């Protein structure tokens, strides 16, 4: 990147935060995964990676609000569920074709994000966290109460139809298809969040507001507008991920609002490190894969996972991202040395 680019493509949080994650590097990584897709035949491995991709979207979107915009948003899984339920209800109750349903669901979730964000902007820091978490808690009972509207209550919604386009059908067994579908969705979402939004003027505003709201306002940054924007963008991606999840598993139940789900999501950010790309994304991969690797452990699985979380946080409080940064800082140093 030329010096002037570096300045002007207002990288959120400065070059340091994006060290060693240049655009070509990113697409190279995506390319490797794409190739891997051709080599992997074991459908279980495929499944796990599909989950990784979906979780990447959730984690990245969450990182956008929690890490970069500094909004304590804990309604993330609620929004994920909203996306999943929206598409499930649209396809099952109203016979909307899946692709259209997914688009609609994404939009609906974005609107929901807006609806949640509006009151949040009246609240002080931590209360945003509590408010949004309360919304998360409110979901299952509301779903049960709204059974009449076709939420399927505690039972959930079964048989969400597979996505079809260009004559391709993405059924539960079409793991290869899903692998590439999810990979594409994730690659684009993550790219948009970290390389487009966060490096744009908008991303600069998010970080500025996070670091010092007073100063940011005095420089003409519209706090209301940008906080809202951060929330909506994040909700959009999250809803998209949720919708995909619904079609992938073809089932939506309130179970996705249970403890394990949100805890895992938080653990991803914890292990990855928030507000420091590619922390959250790494976190999504590591945790999802770890969680499957630990299957053998049976009853001990979650115990071990918990211990790992605690240790990671104690040994590297900034998450894996900090290692990443150290490495790439060294690379950077090396490079500058060469120049001299």
């Amino acid at each position, binding site marked *: 990147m030329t010096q002037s680019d570096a300045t002007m493509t207002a990288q959120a949080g400065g070059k340091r935060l994006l060290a060693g994650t240049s655009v070509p590097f990113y697409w190279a990584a995506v390319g490797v995964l794409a190739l891997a897709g051709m080599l992997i035949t074991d459908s279980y491995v*495929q499944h796990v990676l599909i989950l990784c991709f979906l979780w990447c979207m959730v984690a990245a979107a969450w990182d956008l609000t929690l890490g970069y915009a500094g909004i304590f948003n804990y309604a993330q899984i609620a929004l994920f569920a909203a996306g999943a339920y929206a598409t499930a209800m649209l396809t099952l109750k109203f016979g909307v074709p899946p692709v259209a349903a997914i688009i609609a669901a994404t939009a609906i979730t974005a609107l929901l994000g807006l609806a949640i964000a509006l009151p949040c902007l009246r609240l002080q820091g931590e209360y945003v966290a509590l408010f949004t978490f309360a919304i998360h808690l409110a979901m299952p009972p509301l779903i*049960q109460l709204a059974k009449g509207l076709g939420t399927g209550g505690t039972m959930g919604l079964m048989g969400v139809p597979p996505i079809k386009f260009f004559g391709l059908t993405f059924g539960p067994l079409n793991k290869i298809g899903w692998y590439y579908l999810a990979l594409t969705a994730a690659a684009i979402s993550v790219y948009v969040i970290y390389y487009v939004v966060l490096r744009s003027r908008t991303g600069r505003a998010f970080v500025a507001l996070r670091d010092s709201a007073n100063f940011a306002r005095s420089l003409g940054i519209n706090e209301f507008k940008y906080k809202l924007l951060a929330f909506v963008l994040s909700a959009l991606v999250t809803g998209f991920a949720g919708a995909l999840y619904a079609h992938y598993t073809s*089932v939506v139940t309130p179970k996705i609002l249970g403890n394990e789900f949100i805890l895992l999501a938080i653990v991803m950010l914890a292990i990855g490190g928030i507000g420091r790309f590619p922390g959250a994304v790494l976190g999504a991969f590591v945790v999802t894969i770890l969680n499957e690797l630990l299957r053998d452990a049976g009853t001990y699985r979650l115990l071990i996972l918990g211990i790992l979380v605690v240790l990671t946080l104690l040994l590297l409080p900034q998450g894996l991202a900090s290692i990443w940064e150290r490495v790439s800082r060294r690379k950077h140093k090396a490079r500058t040395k060469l120049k001299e």
Partner: protein
Amino acid sequence: AIVGATAPVTAQADTIKIGAPIPQTGPFASDGGVMEKAIKLAVEDLNKAGGVLGQQVEVTFFDIGDLSPDKLQAAAANLIDRGKSDFIVTGYGGFGPDIPAFCPQGVPFIHNDAFTSVVDMMNSMGCTSIFNASDVEASYGKVMFDQLAALGHQFPNKKIAIVHGPYEWESGLTKAMADAATAQGWEVVMNEEVPYESVQWQGILSKIREAQPALVHIEVLDAGLTYTFLQQYFDNPVKGAVVNAGYAASVPAFGDVVAQGKVEGVLGMTLSAQLPGPEGDAFIKRWQAAYNETPPWSLAAQLYDEVNMWAAAVKTAGSASDHAAVVKALKEMSFKGLTGTLKFDDKFKIPTSDASQPAFLFQVHDKALKPLMIGTRKTGDFVMPDWAK
């Protein structure tokens, strides 16, 4: 990266692999524990007896934790595509998510969800290899009320009060029960749904006392919840009223409560259990020998039967890997097991009846569940508990 995510990678050619997706962690772990024990026991016994078609059986367990949809997808991919299991067995596989996950695989799969909507989905999705080795909640609701009515107990009046959880299983069962009751001229004075986080029963109990019913039925698939209800009910019970704690009374998690005599005199039910008689007693001994505890009434014998029924089907089919043949055999055979004679109907479930797989009605007596009714057969006498007098 994920190589070794399942237990046995070292499997000789002459073993038959079967997979068991069960909840080993999370809120359902207590049932999962029993499923695991029962399946292990069945497999052990099969292998001791020389295996199936001379091949040893090897079981892989897969934790489906909180039963969230992707876990069942994972289970299917893991146990079938990678574990190469020829048979999938479980107590309950998530009440729904298991069907789309396993249906397309064509591998024989026996579960015990006992959910009308699950059975409907099995059929609407045209699954030909998934079996529900019991009846569905609606039937049990009716059967249970008939059993209560057949107790020969003189109810002071014909009023029934019902409290049930939010699951369709609970609401479906109690609805059927209420219908049965009204059909027999009873009045349903209350049929209220409660969420799982309930701990505050005063309001509901007041309503019950107000109605003064002769029969109080609570159907919540959660031992703790049922227990808190009973506890608070006992503080000020309705005189002369019979209390039925439904299925929860027979789940493993309720065992200690029963054993400590905290719920003496309460009624309960289960879908299927080892019938009395030599086989049943042998099974109990076998279980005690293996785990030095008496088997719980629910899930233990049920899963033992599921495994053995499959083994029998394999014998008829002549090969475990010929899934179509095994499925065909399962569909056609009528298997004499611990819980009765298992014969699937055209909806791939087993209609409960004395002839097939009868439901049990218990009463807690001397810190244990005593069968009062097995199907329509009376096997014990109802004793009016002191607290109700």
